[in-house]
């Protein structure tokens, strides 16, 4: 166990090192350079460009830039080129905004996919199965932004209530309860949109796991014993079918920082995804690289946790 953890940690560190190099190279070798001040501003002079270049170390060789960047990142001194704010603080602030979306989205995904998936597995080939299959694929297949606009326009024109942003703007002086509910309302549409694909995929996965387990001998045995079907399905089968999902908890972790660029920019939700997108537009290299780095760390931690959970849960695997 200890040796597994140690080996895994070393491996992940090496992976992380290469990820940092690859992302650094991708960003710095792409054509086009960051422009701090709009280059088409008639007041802009080449000397200013030079000064910004040296300010951002862009005049140094790439290797030095790489070292500078990661030195700053690990000492927490990285600042955004766009507004000179600490990148880590910025990310933290955005992370807090993305968090409710992520939580509600995840809850929706996990609570909805299980009943749907189980039911369609139990009624394989039946009407419910067929229609839920079809619906799941429908949800995966809609271009996200198209679906978002259709929903927004429907709600705004039919009910004339605001749906954009994190709360109704200017609602300041009402009761805390109203404000809380207002926030929940604003969470509804974006988190539903964020969860649709997840629900569809996860419910399909639950279905196939259930089907697989239902075909196993011990389930047949249980059934043959004459146990009531509910007990067979929900006790014997479901428990074993759940096994792989336990490990999926680790894999949720990267979703924390991912955020959806498209949903967040449509709903002007000030989350991670939108910050990353705007950083790309502004070529704010420190922000892009830091987001990339943190999400890589989360992915690695996520897989690590999921490996560990697998060890813990599945008695067949022993190291």
């Amino acid at each position: 166990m200890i040796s597994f953890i140690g080996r895994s940690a070393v491996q992940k560190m090496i992976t992380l090192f290469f990820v940092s190099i690859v992302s650094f190279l991708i960003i710095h070798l792409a054509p086009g350079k960051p422009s701090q001040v709009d280059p088409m501003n008639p007041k802009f002079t080449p000397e200013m460009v030079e000064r910004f270049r040296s300010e951002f170390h862009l005049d140094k060789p790439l290797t030095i830039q790489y070292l500078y960047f990661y030195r700053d990142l690990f000492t927490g001194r990285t600042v955004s080129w766009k507004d000179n704010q600490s990148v880590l603080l910025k990310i933290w602030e955005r992370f807090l905004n993305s968090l409710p979306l992520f939580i509600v989205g995840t809850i929706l995904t996990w609570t909805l996919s299980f009943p749907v998936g189980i039911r369609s597995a139990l009624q394989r080939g039946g009407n419910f199965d067929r229609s839920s299959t079809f619906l799941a694929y429908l949800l995966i297949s809609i271009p996200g932004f198209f679906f978002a606009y259709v929903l927004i326009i429907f709600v705004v024109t039919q009910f004339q209530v605001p749906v954009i942003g994190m709360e109704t703007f200017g609602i300041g002086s009402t009761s805390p309860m109203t404000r809380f509910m207002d926030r929940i309302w604003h969470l509804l549409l974006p988190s539903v949109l964020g969860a649709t694909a997840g629900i569809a995929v996860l419910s399909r996965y639950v279905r196939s796991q259930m089907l697989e387990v239902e075909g196993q001998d011990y389930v047949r045995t249980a059934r043959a014993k004459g146990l009531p079907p509910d007990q067979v399905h929900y006790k014997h089968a479901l428990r074993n079918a759940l096994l792989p999902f336990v490990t999926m908890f680790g894999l949720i972790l990267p979703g924390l920082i991912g955020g959806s660029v498209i949903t967040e920019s449509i709903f002007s939700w000030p989350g991670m995804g939108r910050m990353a997108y705007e950083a790309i537009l502004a070529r704010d290299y420190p922000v892009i690289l830091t987001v990339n780095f943190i999400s890589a760390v989360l992915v690695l931690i996520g897989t690590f946790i999921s490996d560990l959970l697998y060890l813990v849960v599945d008695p067949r695997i022993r190291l």
Partner: protein
Amino acid sequence: MLTRRLLIIAPAVIILILLQSYFWVPSYEQQTRGNPDRLVQYITASAGDASILNPILSADTASSQIQSQVFDSLIDRDKDLHFRGRLALSWDIYEEAFFHMNPTAAVPGLSSSDPESVAGLIRSAAQTPGRWSGAVAESLANIQAVTILPSRTFSATHAFKGPEGAQQVDAQISAPARVRLVLNRVDQDLFKNLEPLLGAEYFSSFPSDAFLSTDVDLPPEQLSVLAESMVPAVEHNPIIVFHLRPGVRFHDGHVFDAGDVKFTYEAIMNPKNLSPRVADYEPVKAVEVIDPLTVKITYKRLYSPAIGTWGMGILPEHLLNPRALREEAERLDKDPATFTLRQSRFGRNPVGCGPFRFTSWKSDQYIRLTRFGDYWEGPPNYTQYAVRIIPDPLTQEMEFYAGTIDSYQVQPHQVARLSEDARFQNFSGISFGYTYIGYNMRRAPFKDPRVRKALGMAIDVDKIIRYVLHGQGERITGPFVKQTGYYNHDISPLPYDPEGALELLESAGWRRNASGWLEKDGRRLAFTLITNSGNQLRQAILAVAQDAWKKIGVDVRTDLLEWSVFIQERVNKLDFDALILGWQMGIDPDLYQIWHSSQTGPYQLNFVGFENKEADDLIIKIRQEYDHRKQVAYCHRLHRIIAEAQPYNFLYVRKWTAVLDKRIVIREQGPDGSPVYRKITPTKTGDYAYDFNKWIKLPGVPVFAQDG
């Protein structure tokens, strides 16, 4: 089965909780009815977030929108675009002019050219200007005082780029005596008009080199450049004296005075701050505080746009001076040596003396301002001002319909629908920017003005305005802002005339070949038209132009490039045939950077390579002329030259339209103290928010006072 029930109940409960929240959310009507606070808030939207709320550091529109509310400037422009005093009550502009005594020139009528007698000659001429004709008399009459400055010797170190890279040279200068002329008003022709008096060669034959010796031998041309900068024959020093408004306070209660003006200037010029506005203030020679309410700004040379630069927000010196910055750096445990205005928390917590004070800023969400009760002009009617950051135009529109934004910049195709909506009032005007097709005049087919003109004639710009802009645009013929007097309305735009275009091209040697393409000496008229991606209108023009040119037999390829690639790789490196771009213009008529022939190199803004001797002269004259009337005359001439050369096909200026809720009105105090309501009306120049501080939102549309 518990598990089974749980699996069904859990999602149902969660969905119910989410859905019931709908009943708590206010709809369009409820927002103003049940929430009186909403009426005193003005909420607007911006596509992008502000970068930094320090007027000397920011260069984006979102920041300047906020800054215009938080900071106040010395002057701004009134309804007719003339300057109007804000923090400055009034200002005087005059000039001090200098010339060095020329020992080599003989002055007609004087036996010896010693300073006393030359000064005496000018003095007596200035008292009796009638003996001279026209312009000369005018210049002489303008002279208020003549004084003599003694000769002086000094040394200076000068850095220059020599054959071995950067070098330094020590120069010993022994300058002759100078004569100082104090003028009532700025006069760029002064020395030309003194020539009849002092001799035609007096100024031009001044031997600057003779007064300078260097420790290193310089090449002659570099030496004379250095000498001319150290010992110039003549020098114009325009001077602006601002008389400041007494009793103005910053939001923190500190009193505003001349020191703040001087500090703002110094902060811009401080190289550590990397201010993008350095170029504006580079001509300033000195800023002196005469007394707490008087500040004198001396300029190195004639530069008439200079006054406009004082529309810049004034920073509070007491919060940002070196001592304050050092304290802040120490508090934050940062290195004081590298801690500048850019790092200071002031950039996200600005303090100015404008009508609104800064309250809070959530990145990519909103910026909130609160009314400043002690504003010198009286506090605004709104108590809150908020800018929300909403990147997507459709989302902005939805928020406007939901009532959580008060104004909305309408897209052209929506104007017709929204202007009929009874809930809204709408305003429109033409903007300060124009869109053009620019030709790289260094490349073969575009060297010929006939080709550029013909290409312009082949495009039906009116059709573009009518259909692409949905009528929300006007034609433009030259580089000046259409609302100002500088724009020459006598010039008519290029007609849409494909036949005429073909004739013009034929006269330039381009004929259609068997397959219909235009050819000259066996080569097709073929080029690539490029523009940046992400701009719908430019993309549309790209398609229209390609289509129109194909019809007259021009083989055009098109390319859309990402903005930074477009600018850095193509425009800055002058690697293009033709491009579609736009300029956002200032009101000021200074065209030096975009049209002067010295600005045609890579990374400069005259990337089309326009060169015209007369235009160059006019551009210089315009930026040196302080007399509005004369400036207008020069501008009209320059406009005509550029329109005839067609380095750009000037296409259109866009019209903007804004819609507001009808319930937003102007509220003023009537003579008896009761409120009087007026409809919001745009100024002559189309600025509907000119009276913004008097705006207020009402629960219903009121009865308006008669507009007198």
